[in-house]
C-alpha cells in the first residue's frame, strides 16, 4: 500500500470510523444541523449543547464513508469544553489542513489529534468528506436551518 494511502487510512482514522465516538443524538434544548453530500452518500446530523459560550456536549448521527465518520468522531472529542471562538478556530485550522495550505503543517501540532487528517490533502476528491461534519457543526452553532452540503 502506498504511503499516502497508509496515511489517509491510518489506525486512528480507521478506529474512529469503525467505532465512532459520541455517536448518538442529544436530547433537550440543543442546536442541531443536517449535513448531506448526496453524490457521495454521506449523511450526518450534528448536535451541539451550549452552556453560555461553551460547548458543553457535542454528538453526531448518520452514515457515510470512513473519512466523514472519523472526522465527525474526532471533531466531537475535541470540541467538548471549547468556547465558540475556539471551535471556530479549530474549524479554520482543520480546513487549512485538509486542503493542504502550506502553513497548516506548522499549525498541525496545535491541532493535536486532528493532525491525523493531514493525509486528506493528498486526496482532493475526499476533502468534502472530511469537512462535512465541520461545516454541519458550524451551521448548528450558528443556528442555521438549511441542510449543509460540501459537494
Amino acid at each position, binding site marked *: 500500500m502506498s504511503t499516502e*494511502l497508509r496515511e489517509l487510512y491510518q489506525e486512528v482514522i480507521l478506529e474512529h470510523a469503525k467505532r465512532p465516538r459520541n455517536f448518538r443524538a442529544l436530547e433537550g434544548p440543543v442546536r442541531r444541523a443536517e449535513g448531506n453530500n*448526496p453524490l457521495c452518500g454521506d449523511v450526518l446530523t450534528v448536535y451541539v449543547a451550549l452552556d453560555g459560550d461553551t460547548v458543553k456536549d457535542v454528538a453526531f448521527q448518520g*452514515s457515510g464513508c470512513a473519512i466523514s465518520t472519523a472526522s465527525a468522531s474526532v471533531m466531537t472529542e475535541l470540541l467538548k469544553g471549547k468556547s465558540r471562538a475556539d471551535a471556530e478556530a479549530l474549524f479554520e485550522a482543520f480546513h487549512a489542513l485538509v486542503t493542504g495550505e502550506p502553513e497548516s503543517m506548522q499549525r498541525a501540532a496545535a491541532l493535536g489529534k486532528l493532525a491525523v487528517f493531514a493525509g486528506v490533502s493528498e486526496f482532493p476528491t475526499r476533502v468534502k468528506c472530511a469537512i462535512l461534519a465541520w461545516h454541519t457543526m458550524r451551521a448548528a452553532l450558528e443556528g442555521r436551518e438549511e441542510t449543509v452540503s460540501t459537494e
Partner: protein
Amino acid sequence: MTTAHPVSRPSSRRSAPAAGLDTGRLRSDFPILEQQVHGKPLVYLDNAATAQKPRAVIDAMARFYATDYANIHRGVHTLSERATQAYEDARHAVRRFLNAADHREIVFVRGTTEAINLVAQSYGRTVLGAGDEILITGMEHHSNIVPWQLLCQERQSVLRVAPITDDGALDLDAFERLLGSRTKLVAVTHLSNALGTINPIRELAALAHRHGVPVLVDGAQAAPHLAVDVQALECDFYAFSGHKLYGPTGIGVLYGKAPLLRGMPPYQGGGDMISSVSFERTVYQDIPFKFEAGTPHIAGAIGLAAAIEYVLGIGLEAVAAHEHALLAYATARLGAMSRVRLVGTAPDKASVLSFLVDGVHPHDIGTILDHEGIAIRAGHHCAQPVMQRFGIPATARASFALYNTMEEIDALAAGIDTVIEVFG
C-alpha cells in the same frame, strides 16, 4: 449465467481465458491504457461511465479538422462538400449500425440525455394530457426519469414505475399490469448502468404495442455491448451516446420511426432545421434535419462513425462474448469473497458488476482501488431510485469493455483484498 440475446457463446468455460479477442493487440489501439496510476498499471474498469478511444477515432477526428473541415449543408465550395459528405456518411453508418430502415430516421444529438429530452418535449408534449400516463421502470438512469417528470408536471400527467425484483430484473407481470388505457408512452432502458440487467425489449415493445403505446429505449449502455437491431426490437425510439461506444463526447443518436418523427413538432428552432424563413411564415425541413438546429458537432459525428467502424471491425458478437466471459469470471471471483455482496444478479446481464464490501463505504473502496491503479465508480451512478430500492447509499461498480482482460479482474480482486485488509 444465461443470456437470452442471440450472441454466440464461446465454447470455453469461465475458468479459462476468453477465446476470440486478441486483447494484447486491441489494447495497443488505445493509447491511454499505457499509463501508470500511482505507480501501478492503469486498470480502467469505469466503462459504464465512459469508454476510452482507439487511435482510429482520435485520428479520424484530427484528420477531419486538418484536411476536410468546413460547415456543412449550405456551402457550395469543395471543403463544405467534403464535410457534408463525411457527416452524412456518418449518418448512414449509424443507420447500418442500428439496422434502421432509413437514414432519415437517424437524428444526431448531443447524447442519450438530449435524445430523451427531445422526445419528451417534442413527442411527449403533443400526446400527453391531464391524467395520461408514462410508464418507466425502477432501474432507470436519471436521464430516463427526469425528462418524464418535467413533462408530467407540465402536462399534469402521471409517471408510473414498473418495479424491479430483488435480483435487479424487471418485474414483467407488474409492468404488464401497469400498461393501461391511459398509458401514452413507455420508456425503458435496454441495459441498466447500475445493475447490468438486460431488458427484453422485443417482448416489452410487443406488450406496449398491443395497447397502442410507443416505446422509447435508452440504449446508452447497451449500444457498446449488445448488437442492436431497432427493426427486430420493434422499438419506436432508440437513443444512445457516442462516448460510451469508444467515440467522442458531445455526440449521440436518436433513432425514431419516420412517421413518428415526421409528426413531431421541432425541438430546437434555428438555422438548418428550416427550409424557408420569413416573418410571416417559416417552413421546417423534413426529417432528420427538422431536429438538427444549428451547426452540429460535425467532427463528433465523424468520430462516432470511426468508432462504429472500429467496433464492427472486431465484431459485436465477439465483443459481447469476450465481455460475457469477463463478467462471468469477475462475478465468480468477487462472489466467492465472503465480505463482498453483489448487487444486480439478474439472469440476463452484461458488462456491469456492482458490489458492496461489508463494513466499507463504496467511497473508501474507490479510493483504495484508485491507489492500486484501478478505476471503478463509487456512488449512486445517476440511479438514486435503484439505490433506494436496495436500501443502500451507493455501490462500487466495475464495468467492462472490449479492451479489459482477465488479469485486470485478478487485479480488481486483489485490490478488494487490500480494501478488506485495510479495514480489518
